[in-house]
Every structure is written in C-alpha cells, then in structure tokens.
C-alpha cells in the first residue's frame, strides 16, 4: 500500500542481518577449516572437526552437565518464584517493600555478584561457613570439591534469577480475573484446593512462557562458572559455553570451536523446541 513502510522495517532488519546472519554463515564455513593459531585461514578439511567433536568426551560431558544444571536450576527458580509470588500477591504487610526487595537481584550484574559470592563461599575467610558451623551443619569445602562447587553455582543462579520468575509470575497473578476466585470461595474450596484447580490452571500459559525464557537463558550459562570456579575443580563445573570459550578464545582453535558452537546451537534449539512442545501440551489447557 505504502512505499514508506520499508522505512520502518529495513534499517533494523538490515543491521541485524549484517551483524548476525553473515557472521553466522561465515562460522559455518569456518567449521570446515582447520583455522588455528598456527595456520590462520580458510582451508577445506571436510567434516574432520565434526568427527573430532564426536569423539570429544569432554564436550559431551559438559553438555550433559549443562542440561542437568539448566533443568535443575530452572525448576528450583520456578518453584521458589511461584511460591514467592503467591506470598506477596495479596494481604501481606509491607507488600510493596517485599516486592521491590525480591526483584533486586535480577537487576545486579551477574559477574560482579559472582565475584562477591566467591568471597562468601571462601572456605576459611568467608561468612557462610561460620554460619553453617553455628547451626550445626558444619563447614563445607565449597569451591574445592566437585559436588559442592556444582551446588555453589546452583545457589548463585537461583539467587540471581528466581526474581525473574517471580516478576513474570507475579505479573501473571495480578492480571488474573477475580470471578473464578469468588466462585471457588462460594463453593467452599480451601486454599490448597483453590490453588490446584483455579490458580495453577489459569497460570499455565504464563508459566510455560516464563520457564522457556529461563531455560533459554540458563542454557547459555558461562559467566557465573567462569568467575566462581573457572570450570573447576578439574572440569567438574565446566559448561558447554565455557568449554567452547576455552577452545576458541583461549586455545584459538577457531575452526574446531566453530564446529563445537554450531553443534551446541543445534542441540539446544532442538531440545528447547521439544521441551516447549511438551510443556505447552502439558500445562496449557485451552490454546486460544
């Protein structure tokens, strides 16, 4: 209808295509080369990088670890975030104060807070172990043992991103209509019954949205690991992104890391699409 419509769309679209699409296509080409620090340049070595990747146990371990970490933290964040949203949804004193407070962690820079968390987890000088000692749990070797380091990463992720779940779920709760709750009360439903058959079903769509956004973001996890544990001890907290970072930006094996990152992108996209389909079927009753 109007020629002018292109004035709106094209600048943004062209910028994004130029900055993202072309480099990505270039990456595909690079993944078939042996570009590294000794031989920079685009030669053609066929699928050698992909064959090497198939044999690379460290890569697949990192991917498995990332999956466990992602699903685990996001489930925790969802449960806690939902609980917190329900707690400050209605009748509670200083409601707005608690809402603001619960939102603050998501505004803070993840790496900067991870640096602070690292001092908190410090085994002899940090404040956490004395507290655990006092309540009878005893001091823990937070960052020097595999299981503990894994837990430490999860704690930081839950601290940082539960607020995001909280935000989306509280926004959802606040937008719910009032009538179903009145009906439930008239029918004499208790709080648990009301939650199970009124609140939770109505929150289905927004829950799926919130969980998916967090799964996408959590599957990129790397900064927290980099600062908190550097993937250690050993490789016990190494995530996929961090392993690709080591291969690409530190060892400068450009060709190999290109094949790693493309595989990672494909695995993540497929997995997330499947999870999205399953979640929608499971939790969204009527798709309108």
């Amino acid at each position: 209808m109007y020629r002018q419509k292109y004035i709106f769309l094209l600048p943004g679209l062209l910028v994004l295509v130029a900055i993202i699409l072309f480099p990505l296509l270039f990456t595909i080409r690079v993944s078939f080369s042996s570009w590294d620090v000794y031989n920079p340049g685009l030669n053609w070595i066929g699928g050698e990088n992909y064959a090497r990747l198939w044999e690379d146990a460290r890569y697949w371990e990192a991917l498995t670890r990332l999956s466990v970490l992602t699903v685990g933290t996001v489930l925790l964040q969802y449960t806690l975030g939902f609980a917190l949203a329900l707690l400050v949804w209605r009748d509670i004193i200083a409601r707005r104060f608690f809402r603001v407070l619960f939102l603050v962690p998501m505004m803070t820079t993840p790496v900067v807070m991870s640096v602070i968390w690292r001092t908190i987890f410090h085994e002899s000088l940090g404040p956490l172990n004395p507290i655990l000692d006092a309540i009878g749990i005893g001091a823990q070797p937070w960052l020097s043992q595999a299981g503990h380091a894994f837990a430490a990463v999860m704690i930081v992720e839950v601290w940082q991103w539960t607020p995001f779940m909280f935000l989306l779920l509280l926004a959802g709760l606040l937008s719910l209509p009032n009538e179903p709750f009145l009906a439930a009360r008239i029918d004499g439903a208790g709080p648990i019954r009301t939650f199970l058959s009124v609140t939770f079903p109505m929150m289905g769509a927004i829950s799926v949205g919130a969980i998916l956004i967090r799964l996408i973001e959590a599957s990129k996890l790397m900064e927290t690991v980099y600062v908190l544990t550097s993937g250690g001890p050993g490789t016990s907290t190494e995530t996929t992104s961090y392993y690709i970072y080591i291969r690409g930006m530190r060892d400068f094996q450009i060709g190999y890391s290109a094949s790693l990152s493309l595989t990672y992108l494909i695995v993540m996209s497929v997995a997330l699409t499947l999870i999205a389909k399953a979640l929608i079927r499971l939790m969204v009753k009527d798709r309108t």
Partner: protein
Amino acid sequence: MRTLYLALKYLAVLLWSAFVIFPFLWMISTSFKTANAVTGGAKWLPWLQFEPSLSGWQSLFGGVGGINILKPYANSAIVTLSGSAIALVLGTLAAYGLSRFTFKAGPLKNGDITFFFISQRIMPPIVLAIPFFLMLRFLGLLDTLPGLILIYVAMLMPIAVWVMVDFFNSVPRGLDEMAWMDGCTPVTTFLRVILPNALPGLVVAAMFCLIFGWNDFFFAFTMTFTEVQLLPVSIVALNSSVTPWWSLSAAAIVSVAPLAVLAFVVERFLSRGGLAGAVR
C-alpha cells in the same frame, strides 16, 4: 490454624529476604575493611568487630592495590547508553512496521520476520563470539568503543523489537487510520500520533535494554583487551588469588547501585498492571 499459617507465611518471606540481602550486607561491610579485618575470619559489624576504614573506597580512584574505576565506569555508561538508544530507535521503527503493515519476502511473512528478530535472544553468546571477533578485527574495531556499541546494538535490538511489537499490537489501529484520513503519511503518523502514545512501552523496552547492556560481561570481555575496559571486566580483573576484598566490594557496590534502583520502577509498573502486557 490461621495463626500458624500466617506465622509460616511471614517466616518464609523473611527467610527469602535474608537470602536476598545477605550478599549485599556482606559486600557493604567488607568495603569498609582492611587486610587485617579480612584475614581474621568473617566479621560483620564495624566498630564492634573491626575498625572501619575508607581505604577500599579510596582505592576506586587509583589508590594502592585498587583500580581507577572512573574510566571503566564512563566506558560502560557510553556503550550501554548509546547501544540501547540505537537499538531502541531501530527496534521501535521495525516493531511499528511489523505491527501495522504486511511484508512479504518469498515465503516469509510478518510473523517469520518478527520471529527472526526475537530468536536472536536464543543464540548463545559464545556462538557469536568468534564471528564477532573476526568481524571486528576485519573492520579494525576490536578493542574500541564503536566496536562494542555495534555488538550491543545487535544484542539489544531483539529485546526492543519483542517488547514494542507486543505494545504496538495493543495500540488501537483506529488511531493510525484517523491520522491517515487527516492526510498524514505513515512516517508523520508514527512521529506525531503513535510515538507520543508509546511512552509506557518505550520505558519498559529501554529498561530491559539498559539492564542487559549494563550487565553484559561476555562481549565486553572477549572483544576488548587493554584499550577499552568496561566496568564488569575491570571488577572481574580484581578477582585473583590475592583479591583485595575491600576494593572489590566497594567497586561492586558502585557498579550494581544504579540499576538496583530500577527495581522500584519495575514494581510501580507491576502494581499498575502495566507490565503484564509488556512481558506477555
């Protein structure tokens, strides 16, 4: 029964509050310590447990064992603000176009183009790191402010498009049609009629851009070496085996303080119900 329920409720809220506040209190307390106060085991209370000192704060301006934080701070502000501004302009224009006109490029329609914009958020940064690195090196923009701004525009525009497409879809089309009948072209309609009404959406979009821009570490870290240092990178650089905890804490406080204030803005939007539409 009811008392028990209330007691549990407040206990839960207070426990979570304690968990949220814990790192902040620790970092504020630590920022006033000296080497002696840190090495003697965990202490919390100034004057009672340790003698407070301002040396951590002084080190922010180039004191002993610290960093000069002014330059990284300015760099971070420049990159975040200009990246967000450009992303917001381009993203808002694109979102308006996608919301009001039909586009077709072969089999691709509006929905696909919108998805292309938003799907960039799915891309793990590490996948883009190597092509970005090579691209910036090719352009001679590695380790410069313009190079970082370019990257931030690409990173933030999808957020702006995502928020604004939803927002424009909720603005009635009658508004546009009235303006057209008065003889406005699409461009003047957008500038005179739509933009003034789009402020709530723009605020939300700008806020998300600022959060993601200011808090980014990965690109700031991989695309710069020595010339240009952003705030998170300079703080993480302090994180070594002999970390000066007091400087670290003081730097962390100044770094997270400006955005923590945004929590109040978000809460206001929540209470007015303005966020439900914007975040879907």
